[in-house]
Structure formats: structure tokens, C-alpha cells
């Protein structure tokens, strides 16, 4: 199982209502259904992913999150998850606030643009980073709002959000040690669990 998924599973309480924004093929929701008996819904716009969600047996609703979540009532979910998607949103700040209107708490994960390899690419090579982790060229990337951990911390403070948990993960073992020393430099993926202050 993906490390970030394992961390999210730890944070989600059993038998709760979960909304997964940009749920991909529904793997996370399926795991949460099995391990935590959550009642979950995924939102997705990619037709291939929607098809895979159906095959995975999860609830899936075709909906563009950029157009808002106004169809969901206040506090109607225990947890609203957005995994590796916030950097693709038109208005990440508004999305975050919407997530915490609809959900009692939210979990957000995103690729850390402050990772040393991204810095190396821009700082030394003078080019936008393209990696296994971020495999898109600048002109075709869906990722339009990159940020670093530090940026995200600043945003949370500005929006008066409380960080309940914060984790960083990366795949390389060396970095796994270094990320504790300097998460903004060595963490590849950031995971935040947030509530309204």
C-alpha cells in the first residue's frame, strides 16, 4: 500500500462518512471501506477513473470540484479528503475552506515543491522540474498551483486552520531519514489533517 494512503487510513475514524475529492480510481476509498468501514463518496471528472471506481465498487459522482461543493450541506461529512489534487485546483484557498465547511475535518496531501530535487532543477538547471514524481512538462501539467510545506503552513495560518497532524513522506530511504531533519527539503509528499480554528 502507498505510504500516504496508509497515513490517511490512520487518520480516518471508523464508521464515518468520508468524501474524497479527486478520488482517482477509488483505491483509497476502497481501502477505507474495507479497513475502517467508512461510508464514502468519491468525486472525479476523469472518465477512465470513474470507470475504475465502478469496478472497485465505490460510490462515485462525476463532479468538477473547481465549480464548488455547494451541493453538499455544511458539516455533512466527518472527513473530506483531497489527495494529490489541491495543486490542480483553480482556487486552492477557497477549496480548502469549502472542504472544512462540508467536513468536520479535512485531509490534504500534495507534492512538495520545496523538495531538493525541484529546487535543484530550478536553481541549477533553470528548468521546471520533471520527475517520476511530477511527470509533466510545464505546458501540459494539470498542476497549476505548486507550493512548498512552508507555503502551505502560511496559508493554513492565514485561513485560521488548525493543523491536527502533519506528515511528510518520501520513497528513498536516505531521504526518509533526512526528512525529519528538514522536511521542506527532503519530503516529497506532504500530508495535513486540518480543522477550523
Amino acid at each position, binding site marked *: 500500500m502507498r505510504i500516504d494512503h496508509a497515513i490517511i487510513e490512520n487518520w480516518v475514524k471508523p464508521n464515518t*462518512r468520508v468524501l474524497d475529492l479527486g478520488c482517482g480510481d477509488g483505491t483509497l476509498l476502497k481501502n477505507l471501506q474495507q479497513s475502517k468501514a467508512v*461510508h464514502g*463518496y468519491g468525486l472525479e471528472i476523469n472518465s477512465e477513473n470513474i470507470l475504475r*471506481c*465502478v*469496478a472497485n465498487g465505490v*460510490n462515485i*459522482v462525476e*463532479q468538477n470540484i473547481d465549480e464548488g461543493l455547494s451541493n453538499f450541506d455544511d458539516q455533512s461529512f466527518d472527513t473530506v479528503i483531497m489527495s494529490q489534487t489541491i495543486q490542480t485546483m483553480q482556487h486552492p484557498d477557497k477549496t480548502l475552506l469549502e472542504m472544512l465547511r462540508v467536513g468536520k475535518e479535512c485531509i490534504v496531501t500534495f507534492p512538495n515543491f520545496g523538495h531538493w530535487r525541484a529546487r535543484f532543477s530550478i536553481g541549477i538547471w533553470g528548468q521546471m522540474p520533471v520527475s517520476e514524481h511530477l511527470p509533466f512538462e510545464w505546458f501540459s501539467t494539470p498542476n497549476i498551483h505548486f507550493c512548498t510545506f512552508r507555503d502551505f503552513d502560511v496559508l493554513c495560518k492565514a485561513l485560521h486552520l488548525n493543523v491536527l497532524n502533519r506528515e511528510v513522506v518520501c520513497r528513498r530511504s536516505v531521504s526518509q531519514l533526512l526528512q525529519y531533519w528538514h522536511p521542506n527539503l527532503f519530503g516529497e509528499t506532504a500530508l495535513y489533517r486540518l480543522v477550523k480554528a
Partner: protein
Amino acid sequence: MSNALPEDSVGIVTCKTISFDEPLRLACGRVLKQYELMIETYGTLNAAKDNAILICHALSGDHHAAGKYHPDDKKPGWWDHYIGPGKPMDTNKFFIVSINNLGGCHGSTGPASINPENNEPWGADFPNLRVRDWVNTQVRVSDYLEIEQWAAVVGGSLGGMQAMRWSLEYPERLRHCIVIASAMKLTAQNIAFNETARRAIIADPKFCDGNYLAHQTIPKDGLSVARMIGHITYLSGGGMGEKFGRDLRSGSFKQGIEEPVEFQIESYLRYKGESFSKTFDANTYILMTRALDYFDLAREYDHDPARAFSHALCKFLVISFTSDWRFAPERSQEIVNAMIKADQDVVYAEIESDYGHDAFLVPNQTRYIDLFSAYMNKIEVRS
């Protein structure tokens, strides 16, 4: 051209009439002492009797949903592209039941049938029906076929309304509810179209207040116009433009020559209207459009759709089509929002299509087929 049916066809089918003697109390308060329903089935009911699918038809549909009665039939049943071996409603897996609704005009008791009380055609005296009346008669068909629980109840448009009503009124009797291009209630604009169509029929002098059969006539012109109005609204503006544009069927606009001009779309609509008016009963058309207008899923649930859906025990698949303006995607989104609020399991997809409301019947729409098939594949049945 060969008359052989394609391999993925259900093949040659037959229909049969079932007679019911137990009186049926209708939503309008009247009682039908006896009635007949015409049904057709495809595939085989398994030993566990848990692989049955009920098809609910829309406004102009009937029991003949798939296959042909004779190899020479021009057209197969109305949902043939989606019912058959390897198709979304796969007859290798499912036993499919299709019923001509009460009030219909293709074999089931309806306004054109003889009223046993006076041996005259029912005509205008046939009771007004609601969607719940159809569901109640479909329940009796289920009992007749000894199907305790449907694997799925499936319907498009007005059929989707029946499928949803099933999920609320008989929650234990279905495991899946499939609602395609439908709505929880019609909009004012939608009712307006239906009323315009009805007026076209009623204004036809041959309508005779609905008792045209007793007068040995048929309001063909009125019914034809009604169908033309309907047909326009079942297509999208874009789709119609693409198919017909401003192409002429005859005549020209050459200056100096006075000749009648006919656009392709005029001729097409007229053909559609005329052929429909030969096979459909005007009173049934009025009855069906009224049932559409009257339907309001949450009326008996304090007008709270989420409260309504909280009674359901099945899982839902909801599908809409982008260019459908008669049953727009917004209507399906309302359904889905209510289901989520009621904590029901639901899959919702909005299929990109240029075919308007009719899209749910149109073949070769890859995404629609894939999604429909993927959902049906997940439905568990014993062998």
C-alpha cells in the same frame, strides 16, 4: 441484405399476455376490477431467481424492448442496443422482463381496450394513472413470475421515475436501481411542452372528446403534431443541426422560380409524426404525458427528496447526458444530491453526447456502454 440477426441479439422473441383478476385500487381512487398486461422476457431466470431485471419503459415505449418477432421485422425492440449477449444488460447473465405499462396501447389494458362493464372502448373514461400505479402492477407481475427481488429495476426518462418509485415503495424487492436521463419531477417548461402536445391532440376535431374509437375515427393529425413537438425536445439543437442543417428535400430558392421548398427536418418530423400516429393511441399519449407531469418523487415525503430516498435499501446508478435539455443533467444531479444526503450508495456519470434526451436509446456511445456495462458486471447473482 441478410435477414440473419446479429450474434449479440436476443434473437426471435415472443410476447405474452398475463390476466389479473384481483382488483387494483389506483392512485386516483378508482378501482380496475381486471386488466391484462403484455410482457416479454429475454434470457433465463436462474434457480435462485436472483438474476432478474425489470425494464420500465418511457412515454412511447412498450414491452418489445429487444429482439425481433420475425426475421423480416424492420426494427428490433426499442432498447435492443443495450439488451443482449455481451451488451450492458447481458442476457448471458440476466433474465430481463419488459412490460407494456397499464394504460398502454400495445397489448396491455388501456384506453383503446374494451371496458367489460359496457363492452365499449374505454376511451376518455379510462382512469388517470400515476407512476405508482404502474409500479403496483409491476409488483403483481413480479409475484406472477415468482421474482421476490429484482437484481435491478432499470428505466430511462419516465422509466427512471418508475425505477425510483420502486426503490421507495418496495425497498426490499430490488438490489439495484438504475435511473437514466430522468428527474424527480418535471419543470414548468417540461409540463408546458406536454400540454402543448396534448392540446394538439384535443384540438383535432376527430378526437371527439377522447371517444374517437366509438366514432370509428382516429385523431391522427393531432397525435402526429404532438409527436413532432415531443420529438423536437428529445433531440438537441446541435444534434439536429448536425444531422439536417438547412438541407432541402425538395425545391430551391432560385430567384424567379416559384416552387415549394421543403427542408429535410420538416419532412423528417412529419414522417416521424405520421408513422407514430399510426401505431400509438392518442388517449394513451395523453395519459402517459399526464403521468409524467403528475410525478413528484418526494410529494408524499414532505417534499424532502433526501427523506424519500432514506427509505431505499438498494444501490443506485444515475446517468445523464450533456445535451439533454428535456431531462437535463441538473435534474440528475438533484437526484444524486438527495441520495448522498440520504447516505445511499450511488454512481453518477454525465455522458458527453450530442443526442439530447434520446441519447439513452442511441447505440455506439462508448462511454455510456462502458459505464453501464461496468456497473451491471458488478451486480452479484448466484448461478
